[in-house]
């Protein structure tokens, strides 16, 4: 059952770890439509009604560009932390990581930790500076002391690239997931996700998007808590007893496969330690870098820092987000082992070959059924689908803001656009993005889009992150350095991804990828930093002098919040 090649393994890992339903199995188009699940559809219908009602309420309060982009800056740190966590606790983490633990045990933990560590870094180096300098998009921060058109154009282009790859992966994931969970055709799911997401964003803007994300996060955390507690309750709340039983089950399965007693015992024990996941430290570290620095460069995450009133709340947001995400990953660890014990031994959840019914990612779903029957399975299915919906809404809002705030209002109209004009362009862009997402989602149904989420992370880590860090912390950074250096970082990440096995072998079908590692970040992140540094250093133009002269004031503003864009929601 185990994929024999290491690179494939890590690619799968990169996808599972990413905050998207980049379900390795689901995305390859190998899923089969299941019988129609009316309980799940009904539960999801309730979620949709609730969120549409919230959207209606939010719409009444969405009048200005500030309302639309940042909910008027009136979200609290606690609410924003839940919404940020919602962006991360995706269908992929829930289904993918629990499935990975179901198969390999302990190895699943490397996903969780790599994914979490990006948050403290974002807090320690950037959170308050972002909040103090930014207004609506991360480009506000990146271009603060620079000539606007070049840096804004870079940031908007990079946002659209990251958002598009992410969005396509989400749409395809939604289609595949709905076949599995609801038993409905692929195209239904893509259209439902696209239309609902457009409604949330068009009418409710950031306020509705944030509340959809919060509701989903609460549903997912409650569902996962219930599952983990139910599993532990069966073992008298002793993890040791749970692990012991899981080892016993795995040993029994290995013995049933024909292994002799000694081999079977070794295989059973193997779930308690690291297995084949990291064979090559270069790929392991590179993947870690992409996750950690990608987190700090994702435009839809960065945008969330502008929804809170000040730096204090921005810091609290990250603390809450980190806490909820960490808690969630601990639950997932228990859920994965629970699935070994309760699902792997029950023939009702297995097909004739002993594999999971419905595909490898169904472990947590079957566990939900084993614990709470059809009703709870319906609830968890609805939560999984709601998760995708909430994430695509955030992505679309971020893409629309890049077009209306960065390109239209700043580059095209040179800052002369009114709030109403800007709002109109955001809404038109939302419609356009939603339509494109639906069309591409359908077009990519049979394609292997598995590389797209890891590509989005690598692009964010290699382009946006170096530009933000150097513009915030290095006086010598200039307009030319930020715009061109950032673009070089992006291009390097893109080119190396194309040359890596994920695209070269899996998508293009060519032999032996020229770039052997699973993630380009170990090379493309330094390439981004070095290019910005070198181009800035060589930049002797008149603009470079202005850029450097603006640093002192920018630094003090970023550190104190003097003159920061205030909340308008009072």
């Amino acid at each position, binding site marked *: 059952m185990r994929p024999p090649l290491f690179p494939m393994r890590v690619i799968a890992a990169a996808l599972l770890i990413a905050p998207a339903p980049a379900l390795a199995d689901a995305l390859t188009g190998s899923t089969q439509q299941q019988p129609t699940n009316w309980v799940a559809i009904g539960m999801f219908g309730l979620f949709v009604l609730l969120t549409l009602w919230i959207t209606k309420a939010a719409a009444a309060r969405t009048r200005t560009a500030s309302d639309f982009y940042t909910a008027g800056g009136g979200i609290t740190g606690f609410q924003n932390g839940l919404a940020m966590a919602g962006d991360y606790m995706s269908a992929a983490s829930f289904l993918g990581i629990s499935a990975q633990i179901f198969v390999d045990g*302990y190895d699943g933990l490397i996903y969780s930790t790599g994914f979490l560590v990006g948050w*403290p870094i974002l807090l320690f*180096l950037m959170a308050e500076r972002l909040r103090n300098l930014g207004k609506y998009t991360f480009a506000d921060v990146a271009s603060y002391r620079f000539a606007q058109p070049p840096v804004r154009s870079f940031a908007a282009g990079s946002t659209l690239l990251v958002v598009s790859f992410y969005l396509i992966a989400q749409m395809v994931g939604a289609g595949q997931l709905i076949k599995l969970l609801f038993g409905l055709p692929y195209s239904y799911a893509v259209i439902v996700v696209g239309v609902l997401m457009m409604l949330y964003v068009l009418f409710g803007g950031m306020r509705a998007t944030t509340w959809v994300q919060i509701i989903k996060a609460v549903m997912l955390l409650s569902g996962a808590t219930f599952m983990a507690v139910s599993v532990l309750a069966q073992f008298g709340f002793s993890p040791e007893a749970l692990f012991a039983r899981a080892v016993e089950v795995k040993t029994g399965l290995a013995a049933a496969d024909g292994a002799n007693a000694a081999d079977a015992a070794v295989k059973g024990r193997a779930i308690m*330690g690291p*297995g084949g*996941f990291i064979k090559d430290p270069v790929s392991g570290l590179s993947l870690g870098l992409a996750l950690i620095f990608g987190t700090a460069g994702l435009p839809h995450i960065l945008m969330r820092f502008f929804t809170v009133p000040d730096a204090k709340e921005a810091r609290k947001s990250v603390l809450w987000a980190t806490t909820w995400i960490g808690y969630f990953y601990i639950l997932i660890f228990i859920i994965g082992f629970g699935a070994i014990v309760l699902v792997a031994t029950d023939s009702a959840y297995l097909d004739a070959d002993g594999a999971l019914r419905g595909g490898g990612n169904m472990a947590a779903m079957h566990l939900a059924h084993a614990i709470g029957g059809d009703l709870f399975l319906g609830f968890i299915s609805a939560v999984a689908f709601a998760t995708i919906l909430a994430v695509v809404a955030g992505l679309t809002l971020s893409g629309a803001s890049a077009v209306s705030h960065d390109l239209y209002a700043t580059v095209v109209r040179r800052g002369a656009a009114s709030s109403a004009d800007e709002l109109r362009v955001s809404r038109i862009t939302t419609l356009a993005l939603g339509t494109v997402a639906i069309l591409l989602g359908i077009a990519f149904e049979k394609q292997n889009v598995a590389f797209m989420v890891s590509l989005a992370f690598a692009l964010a880590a290699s382009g946006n992150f170096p530009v933000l860090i150097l513009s915030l912390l290095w006086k010598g950074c200039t307009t030319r350095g930020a715009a061109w250096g950032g673009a070089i970082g992006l291009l390097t990440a893109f080119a190396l991804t194309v040359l890596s096995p994920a695209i070269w072998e899996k998508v293009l079908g060519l032999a032996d990828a020229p770039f052997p590692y699973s993630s380009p970040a170990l090379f493309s992140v330094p390439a981004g930093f070095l290019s910005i540094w070198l181009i800035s250093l060589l930049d002797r133009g008149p603009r470079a002098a202005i850029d450097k002269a603006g640093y002192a004031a920018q630094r003090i503003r970023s550190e104190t919040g003097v003159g920061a864009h205030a909340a308008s929601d009072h």
Partner: protein
Amino acid sequence: MHDDVIARLDADPRYHALVRRRSRLGWLLAVIILGAFTAFTLLMAFQKAWMASPIGAGVTSVGVPIGMGLILFAIMLTGLYVWRSNSVYDREMAQILAQAQAQSRAPA
């Protein structure tokens, strides 16, 4: 008015000392958490047998508390920074800022 406040802050050694302390804490914690994650990755790559060895007589392996510990450690460091910044540093910053603003309003 903002420009004047900024000029006053820039001339205030207490301001620079405070920011230096805060950013030193930020960098220190960033290095610690990156180091912890790198160490965990290297243990997963090179010390598989040790990570898989059971604690005492049970089946729970050494790696379980280490992995869970890393998750809790990340949350703890985040909490430490937020607590220091939101209570200690922000209070001192508010005092320095209030003084700069008051001076800026009252022309000498």
